[in-house]
C-alpha cells in the first residue's frame, strides 16, 4: 500500500512538473511581437474599433511619409493591459491616452521625460498646452495631442417654444431647467421632460468629473498648489457655497430639474439628452457626433457653460502622446510625435471618414482652427472655451485617488438632502490630505 501511494505521488509530481514546463513553454512563445525590428514602433491607444479606424489612417500616412512602420494596438481596457505589460518590463514605444493619467504613469516610472525642443514643430503647440504636461519634477512627460473643454448642449427647439434665451448664468440655467421640467417643452401633454442631465454616480469618479466645472465656476478648488507641493482646498467658503448650491438646486431641488436617477447615473446610462427627454447637458464635444444623430443636428445647439459667481471655467481634458520608459527607439518616437502634432497629422485625425469617430477634438497645433477644419461653427465654441475659460485637473499628482474621494463625498452629500455640507466637506478635506500625504505632496 505504501509503495502504491509512493508511486502515485511520484506520478502526481511528474504530472505537475510536466504541466509547469508546458505552461512555461506556452508563455515564452508570445513576447516576440514586433519589438525586435528597430524600424517598427509599437503604438497603443485607448480606442474602440470605431476610433481605431481613424488612427489607422493617421499611422498609414505616417508610414508612407517616413518609412517607419507602426505596430498599432487599439486597447479598450488600457490600464489593466498596461499594468500587465509593465510587469514584463517591456512597454509599448508610444502610447496615446488621457491627460489625467500622466501623474499616475509618471509616479509608476512608466514614462520617458520629453524635451519639447526635441519634437519638430513644438513651437506650434501653445505654452498653455505644453504647461499641462509638466510632471512633479518640472520635466515634461507628455506631448499634448488633443484637447477638449466642456460646453453646454441645449435643445434650441425647446428654448424657442418656451420663448427663452440660452442661459448665461447659473440663475438663468436654473430658470431654463425649471421651465423645461414643468412647461412641457415637447408639447406631448405629459410631464415627462427634465431640465438637465447629470452623471452623479461616484463610480469611476463621474460626479467629480462632471461637477468640477461647477466647483471652478463657484470659485472652489479641489486641491491647490502650495509651494512645491499641494494642499486640499475643499474646506473653503467657496467650496461650501458651491456644493450647497448644487445640492439645494440641482440634486435636492425642484423635481425633474435633473433627470430621474441622476444620483446613480454614469455617462453611459445618462442618455436622457440623446433620448430627447432632457434639455441640457454640460459635457464634452465628443458627444456632438452622437447628438447629431439623436436628438438631431437641427434640434440642439452648443453654447458656452453658464457662468457662476466666480466665472465660467469648465473642465478641459484630452489626450497626450506618451513615450514608454526604457524602449530605446527615441528617434523614431520623436518622428511619430512630430507627425502627430503637425498640421497634417492633426487634420487627418480630426476628420471623419465613413462616419468613424475623429480622434482629435480641439487640435493642439495652434495653426489649426477646429471649426474651419470641420466646417462646423459649433466647434469654435468648444475651441474658445478651451482657450479662454478652461482648466485641467492638476496634472502632476496622481489625481485618480483625489478624484475618486471627491466623487464619493459629493455623491454622499447629494444623496442625503438633509446632510450637513460643511462637516462632510471637512471630512473630505482630511481624506484628500491623506491622499496627498501618500504621494509625499502634502505641504
Amino acid at each position: 500500500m505504501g509503495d502504491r501511494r509512493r508511486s502515485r505521488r511520484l506520478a502526481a509530481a511528474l504530472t505537475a512538473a510536466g504541466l509547469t514546463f508546458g505552461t512555461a513553454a506556452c508563455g515564452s512563445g508570445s513576447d516576440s511581437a514586433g519589438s525586435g525590428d528597430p524600424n517598427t514602433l509599437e503604438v497603443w491607444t485607448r480606442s474602440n474599433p470605431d476610433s481605431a479606424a481613424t488612427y489607422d489612417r493617421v499611422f498609414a500616412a505616417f508610414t508612407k511619409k517616413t518609412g517607419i512602420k507602426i505596430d498599432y494596438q487599439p486597447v479598450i481596457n488600457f490600464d489593466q493591459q498596461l499594468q500587465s505589460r509593465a510587469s514584463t518590463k517591456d512597454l509599448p514605444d508610444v502610447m496615446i491616452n488621457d491627460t489625467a493619467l500622466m501623474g499616475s504613469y509618471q509616479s509608476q516610472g512608466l514614462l520617458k521625460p520629453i524635451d519639447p525642443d526635441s519634437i519638430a514643430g513644438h513651437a506650434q503647440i501653445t505654452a498653455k498646452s505644453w504647461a499641462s504636461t509638466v510632471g512633479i519634477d518640472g520635466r515634461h512627460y507628455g506631448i499634448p495631442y488633443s484637447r477638449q473643454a466642456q460646453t453646454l448642449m441645449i435643445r434650441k427647439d425647446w428654448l424657442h417654444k418656451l420663448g427663452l434665451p440660452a442661459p448665461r448664468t447659473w440663475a438663468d440655467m436654473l430658470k431654463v431647467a425649471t421651465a423645461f421640467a414643468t412647461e412641457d417643452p415637447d408639447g406631448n401633454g405629459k410631464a415627462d421632460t427634465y431640465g438637465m442631465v447629470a452623471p452623479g454616480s461616484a463610480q469611476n469618479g463621474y460626479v467629480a468629473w462632471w461637477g468640477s466645472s461647477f466647483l471652478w465656476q463657484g470659485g472652489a478648488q479641489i486641491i491647490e498648489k502650495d509651494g512645491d507641493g499641494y494642499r486640499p482646498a475643499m474646506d473653503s467658503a467657496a467650496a461650501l457655497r458651491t456644493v450647497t448650491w448644487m445640492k439645494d438646486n440641482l440634486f435636492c431641488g425642484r423635481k425633474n430639474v435633473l433627470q430621474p436617477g441622476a444620483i446613480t447615473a454614469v455617462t453611459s446610462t445618462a442618455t436622457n439628452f440623446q433620448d430627447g427627454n432632457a434639455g441640457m447637458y454640460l459635457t464634452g464635444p465628443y458627444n456632438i457626433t452622437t447628438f447629431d444623430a439623436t436628438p438631431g443636428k437641427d434640434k440642439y445647439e452648443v453654447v458656452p457653460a453658464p457662468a457662476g459667481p466666480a466665472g465660467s471655467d469648465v473642465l478641459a481634458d484630452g489626450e497626450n502622446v506618451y513615450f514608454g520608459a526604457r524602449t530605446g527607439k527615441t528617434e523614431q518616437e520623436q518622428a511619430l510625435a512630430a507627425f502627430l502634432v503637425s498640421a497634417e497629422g492633426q487634420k487627418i485625425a480630426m476628420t471623419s471618414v465613413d462616419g468613424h469617430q475623429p480622434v482629435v477634438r480641439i487640435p493642439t497645433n495652434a495653426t489649426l482652427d477646429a471649426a474651419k477644419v470641420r466646417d462646423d461653427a459649433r466647434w469654435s465654441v468648444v475651441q474658445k472655451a478651451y482657450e479662454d475659460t478652461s482648466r485641467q485637473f492638476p496634472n502632476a499628482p496622481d489625481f485618480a485617488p483625489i478624484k475618486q474621494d471627491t466623487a464619493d463625498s459629493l455623491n454622499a452629500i447629494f444623496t442625503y438632502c438633509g446632510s450637513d455640507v460643511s462637516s462632510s466637506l471637512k471630512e473630505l478635506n482630511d481624506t484628500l490630505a491623506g491622499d496627498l500625504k501618500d504621494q509625499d505632496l502634502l505641504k
Partner: protein
Amino acid sequence: MTATVTAPGARRIRVFGKKAVLPWVFLAPGLLLALVFKFVPMAKGIWLSFFDVRPFLGDKWVGLDNYTRVLTDHRFQDAIGHTLLLGIGMSLGGIVVGFALALLLEGQARSLKIVRTAVFLPVVTATAVVGEMWRLLYYPTSDGLINQGLGFLGLGPTPFLDNPDTALWATMVMSVWMLAPYNMVIILAGLAGVDRTLYEAAAMDGVSLWQRLRHVTLPAIRPALGIVLTLAAIRGLRVFTEVYVLTGGGPAGSTEVWMTRAYTLGFTRNDIGGASAASVVLLCVTLLLTVTVNHFRKRGDAR
C-alpha cells in the same frame, strides 16, 4: 483518509505503472486549466498582498501593512455590514424562493418542463444584461415597469436605486431572482428522490400541508439543502457583479460591498497590493464559513 486503496494482495507496481499514471493523464487537461487560471493567480494574489505593487519599478515588501490598511479603512468596515446583509439576504431568499419554485414546478407534465426552463433563464443570462434589465425595471418614474405596476395600486413612483435606504434591498431582490432558479434545480433533484409512499401514508393519516412539508419533504431533501447551503456560503460574501452593474456601490456608498471596494482600490486607485490583501481576507472568511457549514452538515448527516 479514503478507504479506496484496499486492492487484495497489493502487489508491487512499477513506478511508471499504467494504473498510477493513467488517472493523472486524464486529469491533466483539467488540472492544467485550473493551474493556469485558478491556482497560479490565487498564489500570486496572496504573494502580492504583502507588497506595495509597482509593476515597472519593482514591488516593495511591506509585510502586513496592506492588511492593517484595509482592515482599519472605515469604508471597508462599512462594506462589511452591507456584504453580510446582502450575502445572507440573497442566500436565504434564494433558498426559500428556490424551494417554493421547486414545490410548485415539480412533476413530469410537458407544460411544467416549459415553465421550468423559462424560470431557469435568469441563471444562464449574463449578469451585466440582467443588471441593465433591472435598471429599466426599477426606473424611478412611472415609465419604469415596477413603478407602473405600483401606479395601478395607487402608489407613487419610488426611486428604488436612488434612495440609500432601499438600494441595497433592491439589489437583493435582483440577486434572489438570479439565484433562486439555480437552487430550484438542485432541490428539484432532491424532491425527485422522495419516496412517494411516504406522501401516500401521510395523506392516509390526514396530516396538514405544513406537517407534510415539515416531516416528510424537508427531511428527505436534506442532502440537496446541504449542497445549496454550502454553495451559498461560498458565493454569498463574494457578491460583486450584481452590485457593480446595478448601482456601482452608490448612492452614497449604501450598496458598497467588500468586493466592489477591493475593485475600486485595485483598479481606480491603482493599489493592487491593498486590493489583493482585501481579497485574501475575503478568501479566508469564505473558507472558514464553508468549513463551518460543512461541519454542521456532516454532524447533521451523522445523526
